[in-house]
């Protein structure tokens, strides 16, 4: 019985879809500590990697909240920016930065912050 349970766990783990590679990036906000409202999100990635698209998705930590999505635009070598990311509620936020390279490969980074 135990053997079958382990086999099931392994089979399920094998079926798991691949998540993105970790993204090496520095994320800054303007203002440095965003409050409720719009804020600039700057993402500095390794300039040697050529990314074609960077997206930012903000989720609150409570289930049921609609995520805030934004597309970053290139703003210099290795620099991507969202001009007005909408932190529409006070509380804990989790920003998921997703970058895609030329081959379509996905890289992700999670940033947690509290909006007072």
């Amino acid at each position, binding site marked *: 019985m135990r053997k079958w349970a382990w086999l099931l766990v392994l089979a399920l783990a094998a*079926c798991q879809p691949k998540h993105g590679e970790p993204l090496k990036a520095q994320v800054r906000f303007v203002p440095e500590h965003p409050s409720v409202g719009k804020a600039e999100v700057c993402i500095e990635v390794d300039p040697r990697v050529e990314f074609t698209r960077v997206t930012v998705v903000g989720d609150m930590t409570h289930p049921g909240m609609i995520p805030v999505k934004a597309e970053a635009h290139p703003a210099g070598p290795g620099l991507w920016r969202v001009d007005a990311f909408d932190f529409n*509620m006070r509380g804990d936020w989790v920003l998921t930065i997703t970058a895609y390279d030329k081959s379509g490969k996905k890289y992700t980074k999670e940033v947690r912050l509290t909006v007072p």
Partner: protein
Amino acid sequence: MSAPDLLRIPLLGRFLRWRYSRFVLQLPLLLIALLALYDGFFGRQLAPKNFATVSVWLHYRGFLVLAIAVFGNLFCAACPMLLVRGPTRFVKRFLPQFRWPRRLRNKYFVIVLTIFYLFAYEYWDLWASPWLTAWLIIGYFGAAFLVDALFPEGTFCKYVCPLGNFNFTLSTVSPTQITARDPQVCLSCEGKYCVNGRVETEGGRKTAREADPSEGVHYPGCETRLYVPQIQTNMDCTLCMNCLRACPYDNVALKLRFPGLEWLKARYRLDVVWLGVLLFFAGFMNALGMVPAYYQIAEDLSRLLGTRNEAILLIVIYALWIGLGGGITLLVTTLADRLSGVRQSPWKAVRYWGAGFFPLAFAMWAGHYAFHFLTGWATIVPVTQQALSNLGLPMGDPDWTLAALVPENWLYPLQVVILYIGLLAASYVLFGRARQRDHFLAGGVVFVYFFLLVALALWVLAQPMEMRGTLLLPPGSR
């Protein structure tokens, strides 16, 4: 004209009489619990995008209050934790059996567990953690297994389970109740099978206690030991329908009712009333914990006490609020007693007037849960897709923009309506009880108290929301 009996509805009545009907209700919730465990442990640890947190903290709670309001305690009827019953019957053969201590045969132990649960919810931010939510589910199943294995069946539901007792208390507002079709039939019933269980053997009909476990066909009686003709309230009724199947005279009904009659007529025990009072103040605190005023109180308290220890601050806030709520309730109900010319102990005053807290507690939780459920109800679609695709099933790309059921500007008016209905129902109880004493003013005193509580609750619900796990902000971040 007698109230309609839902068991007379052909398909519904037949289904509920069927011995596997409860299992059919439990199975979907068991599958949901298993998927929640899987995603909670192995899925992405982000609450809005995990099946465990979305299903438990959004949909389970939302559907629960909805089911209680329109039908009854369906979620106890469909509780998957009682599926541990099969394994516990097996392990009972090897374990010593105990009787639940007489001192704990009331709701005080549940009150303590509920307070601990509420503390844990805030301190560990259970709502924000799929992993902890999954552990909570395991803990619940484990506790049900342990208590059921060592004590008589039904002990867990009646004396231990905070969730079940939450359901029991709120289901005093439900429009249905188990009752006897003809109480005269019960008077002449030789075995009181609805509570003692029925066993049909070749030698005749017996109660479960009289029969050997291996003989005949068994129809278990009420696990929480409710005797159908004496049922005045939905308190402790899990809607398991054992009574219906155990009664050989087809004398059990599930009747539509006006819940106000229960609040006026039922003689609630003091522990039951305190549970209702606690649930109102806890519901208030649960909502307050999501607005900036709460964090300001925590900051002020932190400065006053000279500590940034969240556990201490939470304990002080909860103790003050619940203690204050209990104390003022005691004072106001005693004053109402004195005004109506009754000089009895303050505890008896709480027993008499405290029934008004049941509709108020329901309204407080329903208002809060309705907000979360209606803002995020459709998120169950993408999280289910994602959890199932993690299992390897082809589910397509989740659409994370699915969320709200109603426009956001409808939510507060809806909460106001729910709380006003709660206040209206509570005032029916208060003035009805005041009328029984022929002293209208006495009910008015408690009504003013309730009115102020509802006004305070509406103020909390009107505040901008703040969803964060840390009670205190790091220094310098504001």
